[in-house]
Each structure stands twice: as structure tokens, then as C-alpha cells.
């Protein structure tokens, strides 16, 4: 014997419950198939409910007057095995008679396969992406799509276009603008050639140290090199000249005013040491320092920034070994001093580690030729390597 629960069915197309009006059987009663078990009141009618199986009433799940929900047990009946077997297909209670089921949420629409992009055919990209491409000025046909089916995605467009930030336009004003114009003019008008020389700076280093001690104030190698250069300029006057194209003349300058290229916040400034040949190394060093300080703080006097006849640039200060400096128009040469550091040099047929510095001399090839420039640079190098030569410089 199996006890089966008879669940209250939906008796009238969508009813939710029913009230038990009158039980027609009691627990323990033997009932036949279709024998009326109970009368219930629904929203629509008073309905008699017949037994779905023959058997013995085991339990009444509600009292008269109680409301039973559709789908909940109404009465339990113990049935014989075969009666139990009859409806054995234990399937889910069919919609029929058991009320309305909860709606399942609608499934998301199945995505239909996107079309593959054909060669030269239309590019696949959703409307918002197209709009972005338009805004960024990106031609979709040139973009590789990484989306499904080769679709061009938003990321593809932003990558293909400018950086996410886009091109930045920086206004060039003031000093930078003037410098830019000057540089361009110099490059345009002056045929540049640069010659290089690596110099053994052992003596220079020692000399600088000693002089610094003697002067009692900070001394870098630069003023020493500048003063040595000035000496060379006295003899190699073409380096301190200017080419007058209109007159087709080379003007060999009488004075030596050395400009010192200086990086400042406002840009590249070139304050000038006037009559550098009249200054000893110490004075030169002090003047350079003063001028650089003034330039950096923006307090250079106007005439300090003009009138130079030759320029020196310390490219070593930002670690460069050598460079190809652009001549400070309308001068005829510019000396770049590289970083002083140990190098492998050949001394007496052997390779040794020596302090060395590479000098780069750019010159106006209308004013000098390579031989002259080479001789001048050699002479400077020789001077810097020569202890006695250094010591002969006014300090």
C-alpha cells in the first residue's frame, strides 16, 4: 500500500485556491474511484471533487472552512500497488489543473552570427564605434578589427587613432620660439661640418684640482677648457668670425666674446662672457657662474645675451660624449665639450684607462675648411694635454 497525496487542482482556468466547504468522507473511509470526497468553494463555483484513486482515506489536510492553495495537498489516500502504479509516471504536475506556473524570464535573444568582413568589403563596426572613429578622424578601413568575426572595436579605433590622450599641441612662444627660429636659420644658411677630437684629460684633471685648491673656490673643468679655447682662437681667428654673404666677405672678429649655452626653464639661453681673453681662468669661472645664474633666474641684463663671437656648449653636463652642435648664427664655430670620464686610451703603445674628454667643433665650411678646423682642434687638444701649457694659462 502506498500513500498518495491528492493535490488541489486548478478547477477553473487560473484559480489560485479553494475553500473547503463540506467533507464527504472521513479518515479511515474506504473510497472508490470518482467517489465525491469534498465540496469546495472556488471563486467561480461550488465544486465537488471526486477521488482520483480507490483506497482508504488516510488524512484530510484541511478542515471545513480552511482555504487550500492550488497545488497543495488536499487529502491523502492509501492506494493498492496497482492503483499506485497507474499514475506512476512521476512527471512534473502538468500545467493542466495545477494552476499557472511562474513565468520563466525570457532568454536573451540569441546573437546571430556577425558577417565576416570581406576583402575590400564593408567594415564591421557598431554604430557607436563608427561615430568614435569619425570623431577621431580614423579611417575604419585601415583599422584591424580584433572583435568577433573581425569586428572593429572601440579599443581598436582608439589605438589606431592617436594615443588616448591624442596629439598634444604645445605652443612655442618667447625664448623657445626665438631659439627655434635661430636654429632653423643657422641650419639653413650655414653649411655645418663637425670635427671631433678625444683628449687625454689626465693633466687637465690634475690641473683643475690644483687650481681649484689655489683659488679657494669651486672650479669645474669647463672654464679651463674655455680659457684654453680662447688661446687657440687668438691664433685661429677663422673660428671667431662671421660670414657676410651679402658682401661675400669673412669678417674676422677683433674681440673674443664667448657665449656659454645654458639650459634654463624658459629655454636655451646663451649669456656672453665679454672679452674672455682678458680674463684668467678664475675670473672666467666666476663670470660664467654669474652669467648662468642670472640666465637661469631670468635676470640677465639684455646685453649679456647678445654680442657673442663664438659659443661653447657643455654637452657633457647631460652626459653626452660628443655632439654635433649647431652654430650660434652668425658665428663661424661652436665648441661642444663632452663628459670627462675614464676611457680606454693608447698610451705608449698600451691601452690604459685615462680620464678623457671628446671635443666637438662645428664650423661654418664657408669660413673654414676641414684642415684648418682640424689644426685648431688639435692645437686645443695639445694645449689641454700639456701640463706646462695649462700652467701657462692666466689663472
Amino acid at each position: 500500500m502506498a500513500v498518495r497525496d491528492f493535490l488541489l487542482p486548478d478547477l477553473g482556468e487560473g484559480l489560485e485556491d479553494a475553500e473547503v466547504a463540506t467533507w464527504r468522507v472521513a479518515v479511515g473511509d474506504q473510497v472508490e474511484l470518482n467517489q465525491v470526497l469534498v465540496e469546495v468553494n472556488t471563486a467561480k463555483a461550488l465544486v465537488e471533487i471526486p477521488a482520483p484513486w480507490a483506497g482508504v482515506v488516510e488524512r484530510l489536510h484541511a478542515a471545513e472552512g480552511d482555504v487550500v492553495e492550488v497545488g497543495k495537498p488536499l487529502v491523502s489516500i492509501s492506494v493498492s500497488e496497482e492503483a499506485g502504479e497507474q499514475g506512476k509516471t512521476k512527471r512534473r504536475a502538468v500545467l493542466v489543473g495545477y494552476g499557472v506556473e511562474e513565468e520563466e524570464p525570457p532568454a536573451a535573444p540569441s546573437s546571430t552570427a556577425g558577417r565576416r568582413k570581406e576583402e575590400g568589403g564593408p567594415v564591421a563596426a557598431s554604430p557607436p564605434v563608427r561615430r568614435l572613429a569619425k570623431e577621431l578622424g580614423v579611417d575604419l578601413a585601415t583599422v584591424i578589427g580584433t572583435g568577433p568575426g573581425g569586428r572593429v572595436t572601440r579599443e581598436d579605433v582608439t589605438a589606431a587613432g592617436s594615443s588616448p590622450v591624442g596629439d598634444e599641441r604645445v605652443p612655442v612662444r618667447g625664448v623657445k620660439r626665438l631659439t627655434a627660429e635661430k636654429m632653423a636659420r643657422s641650419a639653413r644658411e650655414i653649411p655645418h661640418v663637425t670635427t671631433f677630437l678625444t683628449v687625454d684629460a689626465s693633466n687637465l684633471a690634475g690641473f683643475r684640482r690644483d687650481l681649484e685648491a689655489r683659488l679657494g673656490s669651486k672650479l669645474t673643468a669647463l672654464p679651463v677648457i674655455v680659457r684654453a679655447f680662447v688661446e687657440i682662437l687668438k691664433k685661429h681667428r677663422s673660428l671667431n668670425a662671421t660670414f657676410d654673404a651679402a658682401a661675400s666677405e669673412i669678417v674676422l672678429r677683433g674681440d673674443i666674446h664667448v657665449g656659454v649655452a645654458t639650459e634654463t626653464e624658459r629655454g636655451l639661453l646663451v649669456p656672453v662672457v665679454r672679452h674672455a681673453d682678458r680674463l684668467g681662468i678664475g675670473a672666467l669661472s666666476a663670470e660664467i657662474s654669474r652669467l648662468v645664474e642670472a640666465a637661469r633666474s631670468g635676470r640677465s641684463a639684455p646685453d649679456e645675451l647678445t654680442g657673442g663671437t663664438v659659443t661653447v656648449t657643455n654637452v657633457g653636463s647631460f652626459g653626452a660624449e660628443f655632439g654635433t652642435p649647431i652654430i650660434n648664427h652668425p658665428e663661424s664655430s661652436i665648441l661642444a665639450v663632452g663628459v670627462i670620464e675614464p676611457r680606454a686610451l693608447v698610451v705608449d703603445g698600451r691601452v690604459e684607462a685615462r680620464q678623457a674628454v671628446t671635443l666637438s667643433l662645428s664650423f661654418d665650411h664657408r669660413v673654414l675648411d676641414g684642415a684648418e678646423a682640424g689644426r685648431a682642434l688639435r692645437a686645443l687638444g695639445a694645449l689641454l694635454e700639456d701640463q706646462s701649457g695649462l700652467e701657462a694659462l692666466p689663472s
Partner: protein
Amino acid sequence: MLPLDESAGPDPASLGLKEEELRELFRLMALTRRADLEATALQRQGELAVYPPLIGQEAAQIGSAFALEESDWIFPSYRELGSAIVRGVDLVEYLHFYRATWHGGTYDANAHRFGYVSVPVGSQILHAVGYAMGAKMDGVSLVTLVYFGDGATSEGDFHEGCNFAAVFEAPVVFFCQNNQWAISVPVAAQTVAPIWRKAQAYGFPGVLVDGNDVLAVYQATREAAARARDEGTPTLIEAATYRIGPHSTADDATRYRTGEEVDAWRALDPIDRYRRWLARTGVADDSYFETVEDETRQFAARMRAGVISSEPRPVEEMFEWVFAEIPPHLARQREEALRLASEDGKDGGSG
């Protein structure tokens, strides 16, 4: 023809029916009564979504269906479970309509020449007329009989169908089971002209018959079928009967009619009436009645077993017979539905 009292009634031999046919009429009515009650119970037990009981109308259905030739076609409305039995339709398949398994039930109309349940009231009338016209055009000797109720006679399709049939001389028997009620509207509020009389408007005979007298129904239908078959003249038969039960299991008839009225008609039970005549005339005896009783019990039990063990149809059938061949847009939808169904692990489900 059948008396309501115990007077003799017609001589069985005069009816043009053999004694076994007379007994068969009873058997069919008994089966119908039993099946109808069983179907009602099944609904109350949650095995059918809804069911429209025909109790009280057995004679009208059996008498008329029995009078047709096998090659004739029946176009039912939705209450003709009795006529379906006469036509040999498997009731489990017929009741699949009410179990919400399939809209037409699952039987083959062609095999039984018994059409599908038609819910829009009266709409099947036009189909019966068209079918009859089509058969006639083929020179086939065939009658279509269409069932409808008193309410249907108010529908335009009834009027249009009668008119068409008359104009085209279609071999149709228009069979109205006037069971006095269209849900809650009594026939007096439904129409003014007596239903059988409406036929005059179309130019063919109208006949009023006692719908609870199975022999009278048989006779009237036989005549009408012959008239249709031989002359191409339709007939409108109004079979006066009574709907003992509610319109359907979802209806509460106590709200619009009295218990007295129902009881009065119950006393005129058509099966009882016929049974008494059979006994009186000796055409059937107690042992026959007992045999029939047994048979109806088994019949109902088989029907019950078949109904409660039947499962919903698989989901793919939802797309199967929309067109002869499934077009691309529908194939897409089927794919989605099947995919979802298999993901759920339910086949068809009950939602």
C-alpha cells in the same frame, strides 16, 4: 417517437433498423454517458484543463451520427464527444484537446471523417458547406453534417453558411443541438424566430425534433441526409434537448438557472427513456444491460488510464506544422527554443 411514459411507442420493426442496431444505439449512448462523466471527473482531478460536459445530449448526438454513411463527414463544434465515439475516434486522442496536449487532439480527422474541435462559435459551419460543395464537384455522393448549438445560430457564419449551401445546393445537414442555454443566455434571449424555422429564410426545409428521442433524431437525420445526398437540398434540424451540466467545468450554472429546471430535465433522461422502451419491446434484456454496464466501466477505465499517462508533446512539434516547409526565420526561432529547452533539461516542460 419514443414515448415519455410507458406506452408502447413505435414498432421496432418499422424503423428500418435491425434489432442489433437498436441495441447499438443504446450501447453508444451508455458509453457516451460514462465517458462524459469520467471526463468531468478527470477535470476535477486536475487531469484535464477544462471539459464541456454533454450530459443530457446523448440521444441527439448518437442518433444523428448513427444515421450517416461511413463516407459522410462530421464537422463538430466542441461538445460532440458522443459523435466522436460513434465515429470510432479514440477518446484519449480526442481529449488531448482538453488536456492541452494539442489543439486538434491527436487523432486523424481523415481516418474517422470526423473533424477537429472548432472553438469559434459557428465557424465550422462554413467548412462543412465548403467540403460538401467540393465533394459534390467531384461527383462523390457524400453528406456533411455540421453540429452547432442554439447560440451559434446568431453568428454570421451560420447565416452565410446556410445561404451558401442553398445557393450551391450543397449536400449539408445543419444539425443544431438546442440545449436551451448558451453558457448563461437562455435561448429565449438568443433569438426570436424558432431555430428550425430560420431555414425558410434560406429556402430549404427546417425540422424540429425531440433531441432526447434517439429514434426520432435518427429518423430525422436519415431523411435529411438522403435529401442532401439525392437532391442537393440542405436541411436544418433543430434537436431540442437540454444541457444538464454546466457550459464547461469552469462554469457555475447555479448562478443563472434553478435546480428545479435541471431536475425537471433530468427526469427526462434520454438514455433512461430509451432503455425502458428497449426493455418493454424486448429488444434488449437485463443481461444485455449488464454487459453494457461492464463495458462502459472498462471503457471509462481505459480512457482514464490513457489520459493520465499521456505526456506533453515535445517542444519541436511547436514548429512542426506551421508551413509545409520551415522557412529560415522560423528555423532560427526553433533552434533557439530547442536550445533553451535542452539547457533547462526539460522536454517541453509544463510551463
